[in-house]
């Protein structure tokens, strides 16, 4: 018997008992549908994160923090007081204070020098936090603003304009799209090149103003939130913020950014990280920071997938049941085919093919419906609930993963079909023909 004929016979046999086949197909459908949706969520979210990581653009940047109190063993008791250790008063946070009950270990300028001197590190800069009070364009009203502390380091996802200029001595600003209307800047393209005014308060309470040019308009993203300020602008604002600050205050920084050679291999990065670790600093690449995030997402998606697979296993038993009934009903037909010289192997192939076909039917319908429904839901969500995260499509259907899902379901179906198919293949033609 030719393969085409076996396939044809399997397909027409599946439709012989329409109700039974369709019920089994529904069971497979549910599993495949769930699996397609969950994997699409996994793809969608991870793809979003990957895009965000790419927007960070900085494989050559390490974020360095001070190791210590946060990770200290509780049983070890309080650490010895060190007057040279920086507290986070001044230079960090809007009120110049850490939230009550939380103790930060801050980096001092000396620490920054130590980090910069570590082999493999090209330069190290403190991550300065500035807190301007308002932003204003052309006297059209003052608005509050949130500053993106990592803006100088990232490659922003721009709607219009350019990233900060390379020369890096201009006061430049990147505005999120949502700021334009309130500020009266109009469309994104029109806003580029306009000059805005930032208001900031000195340590002693006087308010000053600094002007900056709008370099570009960006999409808001998970890791780059708020207004981006160029390094010169940050420095200028920081200088104003620290005016009048008592000179004996130990200046502290929450974190430092260190540049390394962009061509560093993972081993070289690991060496640098170990080196910093030995000196009491914790260094993370962007990938490290986001890796944690991806692990969590993958964990959640994994659990959802496990449920879908459980549904599929249940569907597998449905296939076994359907085919066993089919073998029982067609005992005579099987006997006849064997009497006419059909080999056991071909009979086996015939019934396996039927199982695979049921699996294919269920998974293909499941995938198609999941894609249709998922795309609609995903679009609806990105326009409503998730509109704050432009670029996020909660479900993304990758052709490869859908092919893999259909393949897996067909494999499960084949495995489910082996028992009935073996039973059919082993039938003795005589017993089968006598069967009443």
């Amino acid at each position: 018997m030719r393969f085409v004929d076996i396939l044809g016979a399997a397909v027409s046999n599946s439709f012989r008992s329409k109700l039974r086949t369709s019920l089994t197909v529904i069971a497979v459908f549910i599993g495949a549908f769930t699996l397609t949706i969950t994997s699409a969520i996994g793809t969608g979210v991870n793809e979003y994160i990957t895009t965000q990581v790419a927007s960070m653009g900085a494989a050559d940047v390490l974020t360095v923090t001070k190791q210590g109190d946060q990770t200290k063993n509780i049983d070890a008791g309080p650490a010895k007081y060190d007057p040279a250790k920086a507290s986070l008063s001044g230079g960090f946070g809007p009120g110049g204070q850490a939230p009550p009950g939380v103790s930060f270990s801050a980096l001092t300028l000396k620490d920054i020098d130590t980090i910069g001197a570590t082999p493999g590190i090209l330069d190290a800069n403190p991550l300065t936090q500035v807190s301007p009070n308002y932003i204003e364009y052309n006297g059209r009203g003052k608005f509050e603003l949130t500053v993106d502390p990592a803006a100088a380091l990232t490659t922003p996802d721009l709607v219009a304009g350019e990233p900060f200029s390379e020369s890096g001595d201009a006061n430049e600003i990147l505005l999120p799209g949502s700021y334009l209307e309130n500020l009266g800047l109009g469309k994104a393209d029109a806003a580029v090149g306009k000059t805005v005014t930032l208001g900031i308060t000195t340590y002693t309470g006087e308010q000053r103003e600094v002007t900056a040019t709008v370099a570009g308009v960006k999409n808001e993203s998970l890791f780059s939130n708020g207004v981006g300020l160029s390094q010169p602008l940050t420095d200028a604002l920081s200088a104003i913020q620290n005016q009048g600050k008592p000179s004996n205050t130990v200046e502290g920084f929450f974190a430092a950014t260190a540049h390394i050679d962009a061509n560093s291999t993972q081993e070289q990065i690991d060496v640098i990280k170990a080196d910093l670790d030995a000196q009491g600093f914790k260094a993370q690449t962007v990938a490290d920071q986001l890796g944690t995030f991806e692990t969590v997402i993958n964990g959640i998606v994994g659990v959802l997938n496990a449920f879908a697979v459980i549904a599929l296993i249940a569907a597998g038993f449905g296939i076994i049941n359907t085919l066993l009934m089919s073998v029982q009903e067609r005992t005579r037909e099987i006997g006849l085919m064997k009497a006419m010289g059909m080999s056991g192997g071909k009979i086996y192939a015939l019934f396996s093919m039927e199982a695979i076909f049921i699996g294919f039917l269920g998974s293909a319908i499941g995938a198609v419906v999941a894609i249709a429904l998922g795309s609609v839901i995903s679009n609806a969500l990105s326009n409503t609930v998730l509109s704050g995260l432009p670029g996020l499509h909660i479900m993304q259907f990758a052709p490869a993963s859908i092919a893999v899902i259909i393949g897996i379901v067909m494999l499960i179906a084949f495995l489910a079909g082996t028992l009935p198919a073996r039973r059919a293949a082993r039938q003795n033609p005589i017993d089968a023909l006598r069967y009443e």
Partner: protein
Amino acid sequence: MNTPVLSAQDIRKSYGRGANRFDALKGVTLDVHSGESVAIVGKSGSGKSTLMHLLALLDNPDSGTLSVNGTDATSLSHSQLNRLRNADFGFVFQQFFLTPNASVLDNVTLPLRIAGMGARERKTRGMAVLEQLELADKAKNRATNLSGGQKQRAVIARALVNNPAVIFADEPTGNLDSVTGGIVEDILFSLNKEKGITLVLVTHDLDLAARCDRQLFLHDGLEEPGLEQSGAGTRPVSVSAPASAPVAAPASPPVHAPTPGTPTRRGRHAGTEQGGAE
């Protein structure tokens, strides 16, 4: 004399074990030569169907040798056996065994499909054989929608489609009325005479058996010698029966002596074996 197409030497076959053991055949010898028509006659339980199944190599005997064209059946491989069943043997069953929802043409070309023949050639040969059996107009019909006679003709078409050397027919007329049965008989015997196809018939109908070249009478798994041709009612007890086998009570003779002119075609148990095709 040349080598017989089918040869069975002292074959025995039993089913079950222990107290449930049933000896279907207790040592039967039969040679079937090419172009012959042979009837295996006996009432139900005599072992006639078992003998036919063994001759058709659908089953293995417990002891004794079976050979096909002089080749010992046990020496045949699985694939040779399948090829033989597929290409050289044709089967006609009382219960038809037609796939109910498939078309008549699909049913008839099943052996060709098993043989791996292409769709176009299958159709040509299927239609040719349906033409021969005057069923061409029913080719697209579902098998369930045929009358009994049409069903049996479809079954014969299916048996013929591979141009077999031997046709095995198990009570081919058992489910048919006498007129239709007569037509089916005529078809089978004309195939035997005109195409030289060897015919092995299993029946309890002595009229049908009498049309064959030779008859083998079976009773309780043993051949009954002496009851030759359409023997005139003198039924000797089996001389080869072992002492433990009781002589058949006169009240229930193993076979009916045929009364000329009386149709005995409809068997006693025909009703109970009906409805096979569904």
